[in-house]
């Protein structure tokens, strides 16, 4: 008789029909984690990869050494960007359900991860996102219409119809082209940062990866090259607990935090409350200062929760409890910043509702405009000749011939 398997197989804490269980998430009280000097040696601050950097407490106060002490107007801008992200996500999901776009991916519950980080960086810093940081786009001044035209693959699509929805880019916004291949951007960002260092510039690169994607080889290459050359780069792991249906335990999160990978390479790892706008801002600021000082890279794990489906092709009720998101112990990033501002006396439910309505209006108007430039099914379409461009800088002869062949095909 065969002996029973001794393999250890991680399992999700709760599956459909079971009660959500977040006892596995290690929390630290807000304000409790020390903030070391930005030039501290990685070995001396390994605790930061275990504890959880938090600023906002349950009473909506900002506490402790990581409090970035931001001006109220900065907080309000942050709130606005996060709310816009959410309104945009919700609306774009609906357009997908209506068959107007082919596919969509929301970032619901993770808005602080992108917005706070982008606000803590300089406009000249280069960002290498994954597909779930649309908040970066708004901070970097993207126009709603431009983003929507990308989703629509229409005549104004910045990608000329080549990419799936949400795979944006922006040259003036210094946002690198998003790839459908997971993790590839991580070591590219390190290369960019190496070049910045070679050029003697103060710019740094920041990049984001999902916790699931951190299993890819690229993650290792990024940490290694960043370590060897002390590249000025911020390596962000967005631990939203899920990779499609796969729990983070399968990415190695069961044994140690993702931040804990850093110290093994001599890179500090910060474990940060990703739903705490102030904590994300502060951690990013710390790491950016460290990088600009020449002390090299930081690995930042943002502990958050993917509150929505993976994408419009996904149905999370098949693999996790329906009410999982509501029970997430770190709450909702927008709600938390909102309450903090209210506690400061600088915001109110009314102002919030007004802002939400205003943003909804903005999104609606932009959508109207965007659809004028064509949708998947209607209206003006991109010139199909464009299909052959940009394979190379100049059109080689065989692609000219194929373009001609296609023209003949369709006439």
């Amino acid at each position, binding site marked *: 008789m*065969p002996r029973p*398997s001794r*393999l250890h*197989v991680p*399992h*999700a804490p709760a*599956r459909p029909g079971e009660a959500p269980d977040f006892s596995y998430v290690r929390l630290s009280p807000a304000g409790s984690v020390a903030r070391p000097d930005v030039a501290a040696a990685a070995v001396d601050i390994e605790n930061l990869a275990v504890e959880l950097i938090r600023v906002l407490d349950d009473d909506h106060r900002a506490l402790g050494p990581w409090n970035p002490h931001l001006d109220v107007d900065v907080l309000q801008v942050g709130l606005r960007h996060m709310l816009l992200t959410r309104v945009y996500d919700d609306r774009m999901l609906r357009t997908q359900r209506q068959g107007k776009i*082919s*596919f969509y991916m929301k970032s619901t519950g993770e808005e602080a991860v992108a917005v706070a980080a982008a606000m803590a960086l300089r406009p000249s810093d280069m960002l290498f996102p994954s597909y779930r940081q649309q908040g970066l786009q708004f901070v970097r001044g993207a126009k709603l219409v431009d983003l929507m035209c990308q989703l629509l*693959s229409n005549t104004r*699509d910045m*990608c*000329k*119809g*080549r*990419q*799936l929805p949400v*795979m944006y880019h922006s040259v003036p916004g210094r946002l690198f082209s998003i*790839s*459908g*291949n*997971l*993790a590839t951007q991580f070591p590219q960002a390190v290369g960019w940062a190496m070049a910045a260092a070679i050029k003697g510039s103060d710019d740094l690169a920041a990049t984001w990866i999902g916790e*699931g*994607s951190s*299993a*890819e*080889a690229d993650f290792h290459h990024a940490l290694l090259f960043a370590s060897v050359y002390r590249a000025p780069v911020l390596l962000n792991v967005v631990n939203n607990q899920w*990779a*499609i*249906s*796969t729990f983070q335990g*399968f*990415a*190695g999160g069961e044994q140690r935090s993702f931040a804990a990978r850093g110290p093994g390479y001599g890179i500090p790892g910060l474990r940060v409350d990703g739903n705490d706008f102030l904590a994300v801002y502060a951690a990013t600021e710390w790491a950016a200062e460290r990088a600009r000082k020449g002390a090299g890279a930081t690995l930042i794990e943002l502990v958050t929760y993917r509150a929505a489906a993976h994408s419009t*092709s996904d149905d999370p009720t*098949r*693999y996790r409890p329906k009410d999982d998101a509501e029970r997430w112990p770190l709450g909702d990033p927008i709600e938390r910043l909102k309450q903090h501002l209210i506690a400061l006396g600088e915001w109110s439910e009314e102002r919030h509702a007004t802002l939400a309505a205003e943003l909804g209006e903005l999104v609606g108007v932009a959508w109207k405009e965007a659809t004028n430039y064509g949708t*998947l099914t209607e209206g003006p*379409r*991109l010139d*199909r000749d*464009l*299909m*052959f461009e940009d*394979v190379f800088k100049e059109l080689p002869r*065989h*692609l000219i011939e*194929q373009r001609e*062949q*296609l023209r*003949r*095909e*369709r006439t």
Partner: protein
Amino acid sequence: MPQMNMIQALNSAMDITLGRDPAVVILGEDVGYFGGVFRVTDGLQRKYGTHRVLDTPIAEGGIIAASIGMAVNGLRPVAEIQFADYIYPGYDQIVSELARLRYRSASAFAAPVTIRTPCGGGIRGGQTHSQSPEALFAHVCGIKVVMPSNPYDAKGLLIAAIEDDDPVLFLEPKRLYNGPFDGDPNKPAVPWSTHAKGEVPDGHYTVPIGKAAVVREGREVTIISYGTMLHVAEAAARALGLDAEIIDVRSIVPLDVETLVTSVAKTGRCLIAHEATRFAGFGAELVATIQERCFWQLEAPIERVGGWDTPYPHAFEWEYFPGPQRVGAALKRVMEAR
């Protein structure tokens, strides 16, 4: 006989091999609890447990490498790569290790790993969910490469692949998962239940690797294709009223040269169609082989139809896809040339 779509047929193949051979294990991203993003492994973990149907980290290179090690230790891993477009992080382990282990060790070690992966376009997947990379593996010595075009072959070939002592790359044309497809995206979807090859035995059977299928006999022209394009080419020939001999390659490596050559020697005309990018695609090998062996019988240049030499663009899916118009035009050329 039961009706199955291709997803069910593949699922049945794994169910049967898991049941018959305790050495079979399934692994891949989201294949376990969830049953795969295309539901191909649905229910298998429930039936065979978490130790035989394993969710994995998102690391295609790690998945292939672990599969090799498992196979060396006597298991028969069936690894799923979620999309063929994401197989490249595992390319080194496939090309340098899996394909050459038997050779370099003179058969002291071997790794009977099956790698399943959905390929091809037609589902609005854009440049990263639509690729057909068969040529990038056909050139590699030591790994078999197959692609079925219907549920019956899918099940029989997958069982054959899992039972094969050599590694096999098993490419699944995802556009065919739910039904045959004649290349016209505007027509209503057709289910496999309407197709003869949607009848699939419940039990164990194999379709031999290394044998092409003559899907239709004919005298005027030989059409050689595989996967989704087989159906498109069939429809194009029908639309032109040609008496075409239609061959489903099925097995890219090893290639059933004899069946191809016998047919072209008979018809004197040949069209080759695949969905992959044309330049240096597998069609080139088919053309080269046939012109070498049938040169004196050929009455017209062999026509080769494929995707354009560009990535697969999201907005131009049907302009990129070698649909009935492109195939039809090429068929006309090959029939008219003299």
